[in-house]
């Protein structure tokens, strides 16, 4: 079959690809039949709770666990030291791809010293969580407080203590890239704008907290872990290696996952401890983080300060950009994905939509006595886009050019690919110009400007924001993970099987956390093979059942897993047609599969059904000629070749109203035009964008993990850490441009993070547009009413 024929399978009339189909998981969810990790309650399950460091930095002088051990219902009390004896060694959260990066060895629970408030110190395992918490109260730990490092700006100053003296300083990583000649371009520019931007710490706040149930069977040395995870195979590798259990003896099951957003690609010391307890006791042990623990131990993200500079000609052409990033990590670099991706990604993507060729970016990531940071939805993009797009808006204003027109002048042209970005990254199949013009039409931009002016006359301050973006999705193997030395697959795989009933099983390494990954894989499979969607069942999230894969992260499920699924389905289709051809004594090129039946091409009359092929292929094999040994199963893998990412692009628009007396921001309307390549299920793609936007808006407007000068987290409850709720959020208009990526035959790129990546930028630009006549300017997020009033000089 030639390539054309293959693609046509997906584009046939009534294809399942490109169609809205509802999700099975949704049907379970509405009936209260979701099955999350905490819903699984095996007999004799014990529950873990943790004594955690109350200090940002402290020496552990002594630990007394006797009273806790004697408490009725307690099965085990374990200190960090005892746990580390069960481990093969501490974690070191570095990757070789980040040259010069350093991190201190980290034990799953603190040994001798705690380096952030919330770090686990002692685990208690008991008959219930309540009893385990009672016994935690009976553990007595004596600490000696040590000085803390909490200010990233000061972290490298000579008088500041060094958190891990063996590292020599508090620097985790530094990197500079430069293309072209920034100094020359800047000195020759008509206009140069400089500004400094700050971003607060956020955390993922998945509604279902981190959850893990470990079941070790001492008879067979098999370890089964149910956990709320995006990456079962990575968890398998990390837990097996950390606890010295052979990887093939470890089964990881991710049941329904109640939100993940990058949080659940990580591994945590308390989860290792829980698993160790199950190994030690030979009983199921469960750990469910409560909300306080979530705030104080889930990875944090986004704490960055960026100085930025843009140079332009007076006609509004960008000639150069340069940025300087100071990124505040936690006390250790998060193992195994590190705490430096965010800073590295800011460096990769800032100013990414534009055609200038002079760019310099410097980053320094420093250790602080705070919760370790790592990947959270749209890693680095909200920051890079906010910086880049604010500079672009300020430059447009300085040139007296409308922000839309300014972007028209500067975005990479749609006919200019493949090309290299100013950051030196290969770009292909992008559509900035198409997205921009679509946005202008969707927003009704000119009349919105007229409306804005009319409101100004009435004393109502409305602002319009525009933010173009690029988004790195579906990382390739040459970049960070595999090449960096971590057991994290960048390839992904799918196995499809024809069952005797004619049903199709589709087993994928990518996982679903509610995005509809399983539905999407089912649609690709059904469309490719030519069978009703109801006859396809997708299995994901179980290392005993699915081929090895990286799971779901960095918007890779459809882009990577979708292509693997497409290729596997093509292979199975080919085998089915060969068997049908032999049975029907027909030329296979003259046959087709439609609606679960083998038909003559162009016809719909069934010559033989898939159920018949399934039956004969499994039970009645003697009907087949000798040279055919039916396998009726195909596995394919897909990985990128050289590309660092499959980059996507898009643009957002926002319309806001700012109350200049109270500093309150009202979100009136929001638009997204994005290009994720081929859209498999338009509704699911839209909802990824909408949910992602609101997550970005939360970060831009409300969310921040606030630390005091002693390294104490001040707002570790949902009442104090504000999240976006229905009342404040706008409806979000979504449109798609579909420029298929050339790196796969399916043509899909990632979509899960595009909303989050640019929503903070666009709303910041809109707010600044609203307050510009008053001389105010916002360069820090979250944009609280206080920040607005300060910018307006009112407080």
């Amino acid at each position, binding site marked *: 079959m030639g390539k054309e024929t293959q693609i046509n399978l997906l584009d046939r009339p009534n294809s399942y690809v490109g169609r809205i189909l*509802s*999700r099975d*998981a*949704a*049907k*379970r*969810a*509405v*009936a*209260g*039949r*979701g*099955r*999350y990790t*905490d*819903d699984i*309650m095996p007999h004799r399950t014990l529950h873990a709770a943790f004594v955690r460091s109350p200090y940002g930095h402290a020496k552990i002088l002594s630990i007394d666990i006797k009273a806790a051990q004697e408490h*009725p219902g307690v099965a085990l009390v374990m200190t960090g030291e005892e746990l580390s004896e069960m481990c093969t060694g501490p974690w070191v959260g570095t990757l070789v791809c980040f040259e010069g990066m350093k991190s201190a060895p980290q034990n799953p629970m603190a040994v001798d010293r705690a380096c952030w408030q919330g770090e686990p110190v002692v685990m208690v395992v008991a008959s219930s969580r*309540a009893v385990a918490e*009672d016994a935690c109260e009976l553990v007595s730990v004596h600490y000696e407080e040590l000085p803390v490092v909490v200010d990233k700006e000061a972290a490298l100053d000579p008088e500041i203590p060094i958190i891990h003296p063996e590292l020599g300083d508090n620097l985790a990583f530094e990197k500079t890239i430069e293309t072209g000649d920034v100094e020359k371009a800047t000195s020759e520019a008509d206009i140069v704008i400089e500004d400094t931007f700050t971003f607060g710490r956020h955390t*993922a*706040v*998945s*509604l*279902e*907290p981190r959850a893990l149930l470990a079941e070790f069977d001492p008879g067979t040395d098999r370890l089964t872990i149910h956990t709320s995870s995006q990456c079962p195979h990575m968890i398998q590798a990390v837990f097996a290696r950390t606890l010295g259990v052979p990887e093939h003896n470890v089964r990881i099951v991710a049941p*329904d*996952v*109640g*939100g*993940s*957003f990058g949080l659940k690609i990580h591994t945590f010391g308390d989860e290792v401890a829980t698993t160790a307890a199950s190994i030690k006791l030979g009983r199921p042990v469960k750990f469910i983080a*409560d*909300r306080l623990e979530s705030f104080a131990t889930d990875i944090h993200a986004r704490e960055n300060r960026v100085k930025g500079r843009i140079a332009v000609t007076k006609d509004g052409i960008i000639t150069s950009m340069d940025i300087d990033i100071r990124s505040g990590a936690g006390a250790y670099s998060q193992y195994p994905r590190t705490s430096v991706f965010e800073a590295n990604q800011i460096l990769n993507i800032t100013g990414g939509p534009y055609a200038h060729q002079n760019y310099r970016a410097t980053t320094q990531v420093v250790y602080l006595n705070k919760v370790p940071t790592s990947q959270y939805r749209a890693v680095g993009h909200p920051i890079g886009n906010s910086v880049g797009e604010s500079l672009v808006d300020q430059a447009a204003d300085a040139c007296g050019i409308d922000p839309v027109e300014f972007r028209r002048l500067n975005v990479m042209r749609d006919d200019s690919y493949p090309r290299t970005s100013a950051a030196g990254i290969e770009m292909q199949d992008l559509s900035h110009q198409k997205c921009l013009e679509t946005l202008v039409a969707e927003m009704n931009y000119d009349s919105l400007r007229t409306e804005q002016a009319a409101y100004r006359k009435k004393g109502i301050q409305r602002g319009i924001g525009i933010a173009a973006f690029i988004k790195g999705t579906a990382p390739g193997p040459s970049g960070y993970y595999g090449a960096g030395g971590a057991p994290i697959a960048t390839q992904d795989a799918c196995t499809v099987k024809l069952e005797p009933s004619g049903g199709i099983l589709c087993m994928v390494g990518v996982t679903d*956390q*509610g*995005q*509809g990954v399983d539905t999407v894989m089912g649609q690709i499979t059904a469309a490719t093979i030519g069978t009703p969607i109801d006859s396809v069942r997708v299995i994901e999230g179980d290392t005993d059942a699915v081929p090895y894969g990286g799971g779901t992260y960095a918007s890779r499920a459809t882009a990577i897993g979708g292509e693997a699924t497409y290729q596997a389905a093509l292979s199975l289709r080919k085998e089915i047609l060969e068997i049908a051809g032999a049975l029907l004594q027909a030329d296979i090129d003259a046959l087709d599969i439609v609606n679960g039946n083998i038909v003559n091409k162009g016809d719909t009359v069934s010559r033989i059904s898939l159920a018949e092929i399934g039956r004969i292929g499994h039970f009645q094999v003697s009907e087949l000629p000798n040279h055919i040994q039916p396998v009726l199963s195909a596995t394919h893998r897909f990985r990128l070749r050289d590309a660092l990412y499959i980059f996507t692009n898009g643009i957002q628009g926002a319309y806001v109203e700012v109350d200049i007396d109270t500093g309150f921001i009202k979100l009136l309307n929001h638009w997204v035009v994005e290009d994720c390549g081929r859209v498999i299920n338009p*509704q*699911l793609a839209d*909802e990824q964008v*909408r*949910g*992602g*936007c*609101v*997550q970005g808006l939360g970060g831009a407007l409300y969310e921040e993990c606030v630390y005091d000068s002693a390294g104490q987290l001040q707002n570790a*409850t*949902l*009442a104090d850490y504000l*999240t976006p*709720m*229905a*009342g*404040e*959020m706008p*409806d*979000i208009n979504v449109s798609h441009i579909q420029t298929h990526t050339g790196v796969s035959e399916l043509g899909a790129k990632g979509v899960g993070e595009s*909303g989050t990546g640019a929503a903070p930028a666009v709303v910041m630009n809109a707010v600044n547009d609203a307050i510009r006549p008053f001389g105010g300017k916002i360069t820090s997020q979250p944009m609280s009413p206080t920040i607005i009033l300060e910018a307006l000089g009112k407080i």
Partner: protein
Amino acid sequence: MSEITMEITLTVNSEKITKTVPVRQHLVDFLRMELGLTGSHLGCEHGVCGACSIRVNNAVVRGCLMLAVQADGADVVTVEGLTETKEIEDLQKNFVERNAMQCGYCTPGMLVTAAELLRTTKPISRDDIRNHLSGNFCRCTGYHAIIDAVETTINNRLKGR
């Protein structure tokens, strides 16, 4: 110290139940752990997220803020009960069709809270739907689809469909 317990009798999803419970156990832990009704979820256990919303004596309450012993004699309805009686069948169908959930963790609480709106005899604006649901946190959807699903259900009911 052994757990202090108390016997309670209550109706859960139309079924009469008598159980001895620890006095400190909250109602959703009781429903989940003692009765296996895992449809009600816990997102914060401090009354903010709404994932634990259930009906007690015909009012929507945060099950994490109520002790099981306080429900002695009460009539409790969870998402499982609402499903069995088909009271919100249309709302559930619209949630599925509109994909008004992703991970589904907030969904039972959203449905229980949104069900209160379905008895209206007048149209309800999107803003009012948003305000009514503004005590239920959803991290996944961005709310737009949820508002659509509730709005469609209300409008269809008003049209007598």
